[in-house]
């Protein structure tokens, strides 16, 4: 191989090019080169990435709020076979305002019959949605609960007898320092969590 000026120039230009490519990728704020950018920045509206103002919606957002007064169709089970082989139909739309916790205590009943499987599902949901404040055993000693303060112990005298309706209502609307969690767990999931909270009220 002859070491000519031409060869060296070629090598140098390739090196410069590759360095440019490599440095453009190492910037954490940049996605680097894209082969077909309009595949990443979709022309169609996407739920979680918006890269240009929306010209149709007045506020410029792709997302729209549901039409006022409409109710989402239940995306959860509403029919449950009970232990005595009757069937309970419950749409779980209770229309109780936040302050009627006393009404909830007497009128709401868990439509999902207890079983090991349901309690286990409730436990998983509890771990995802409640544990960081209320603690693994419901003692109010979760990592966030310690900072947040005022998280009760389920097994304490004032809490160990709280019934289905009370727990469901508190998850839905919050109580005291706890805020509403209705947007995170749907009614069916709330009733499963209720089963597991009853387990934690036993304090073992």
């Amino acid at each position: 191989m002859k070491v000519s000026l031409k060869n060296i120039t070629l090598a140098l230009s390739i090196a410069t090019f590759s360095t440019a490519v490599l440095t453009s990728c190492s910037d954490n704020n940049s996605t680097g080169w894209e082969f077909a950018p309009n595949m990443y920045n979709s022309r169609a509206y996407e739920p979680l990435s918006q890269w240009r103002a929306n010209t149709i919606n007045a506020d410029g957002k792709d997302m729209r709020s549901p039409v006022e007064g409409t109710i989402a169709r239940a995306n959860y089970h509403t029919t449950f076979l009970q232990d005595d082989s009757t069937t309970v139909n419950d749409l779980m739309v209770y229309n109780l305002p936040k302050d009627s916790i006393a009404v909830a205590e007497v009128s709401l009943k868990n439509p999902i019959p207890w079983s090991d499987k349901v309690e286990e599902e409730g436990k998983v949901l509890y771990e995802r949605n409640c544990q960081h404040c209320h603690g693994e055993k419901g003692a109010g000693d979760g990592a966030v609960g310690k900072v947040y303060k005022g998280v009760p112990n389920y097994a304490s005298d004032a809490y160990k007898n709280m019934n289905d309706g009370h727990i469901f209502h508190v998850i839905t609307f919050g109580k005291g320092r706890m805020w509403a969690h209705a947007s995170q767990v749907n009614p069916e999931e709330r009733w499963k969590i209720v089963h597991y909270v009853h387990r934690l009220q036993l304090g073992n």
Partner: protein
Amino acid sequence: MENNSSVVLQSEKVGVLHLYINMIRKFYKSILALAVVVSISLGNATAQDSTSAASAAPAAGAGGDVAKGEGLFKNNCAQCHAVTAEVVVGPGLAGIEERRDYAWLKKWINNPMGVIGSGDKYANELYAKYNKTQMTAFGAFGDDEVKAILAYVKSAAAPKVEGPVDPNKVTQPAETGGGKFINVILISLLVIMALVLVALLGILQLLNRLSGGESLESSASFGEKLKASFKNIAANKTVRSAIVWAFILLATKATFDGMYGIGVHQGYAPKQPIAFSHKLHAGEMKINCAYCHTGVYKGKQSGIPSANICMNCHNAIKRESPEIQKIYSAIESNKPIEWVRVHNLPDLAYFNHAQHTNVGGLECKNCHGEIEKMEVVQQRSSLTMGWCIDCHRKSEVNGKDNGYYTKLMEAHSLVSKGAMKVQDNGGLECAKCHY
């Protein structure tokens, strides 16, 4: 450099091989010295750790009534009240018995809303002062319980004897000890590299001498000799073409690597509008991913939490922080927080979270890496098609408690001995993801 030249000069007299041996000897000596330094600093660090552990001895407790009170207090009161004067949710209880008499306290604990309702002035003032937060009624507490709790509050509020070691004094040196240790490692690495350089230069000199056979004049300085030897090497055609070829090969590799990186966002870690730390929330606070990313077990998208989920905690925690204030202003002006999307598949590929988390039983970190250790979220996986396919080839179908797969798995076991992989269920078919 001066040291080096004196060593070289000395070698002229004593002989080349002697110099070589001498150098190696020196090299090992310095490595030995380094090892001693490192082990001493290690010893220091562990010694400091053990002192800090010893200082965390529990304070002595009291027996009888107080012990019962402690249990009751921790289970029922500690969530809202401190035994000191510190306000948690309700007032701190230090000196409570001087503020109110026993009969009032008993009545209050049994039924706080009743006392407020009866028009008691102190109770109403208290209620107003603490944002009308209702205290839980403890109707089951009799005289024994209330007295035990009060006894515990009194004993716990009394100033404790100072521990033998000041906590500040323990933690600080341990931290700086860690920093020093890293410094020692860095410095020793530098020293080792410098020594290797010196040894290499020595060898170069030696080779030069042996191959050339020419004796350089002892009056020539080290720099000049080095220059001359480099000139010799540069003049050699074989060496020149070897260097050019190595250069071309490396550049080609770098170019191909760069081209494979096109469209791959691996390492992308954009700055977000709010300095949210996953390390703090998911790591230290142990908040489950699904608490905020509510869709991850239910839908195609895992979802970005809306501000109301932030507010579940931040209505009380760190309210004054400027970063949290950004959430408040977003809510007040009804404008969404414009988070920058990190993981983004191009439109040509379909991906569904629920299928992978709920059905497949994958953990978040299988694809997203150790998010709980990231201050700023970074895309750890390449998300290329090869990466998807690779997993679909290796992973077994999770058919546990899933009737949908029962018959399929039976059919699979008739024709194949191995477990059913995702690829056996069409995991490699183009139209599964591209349509």
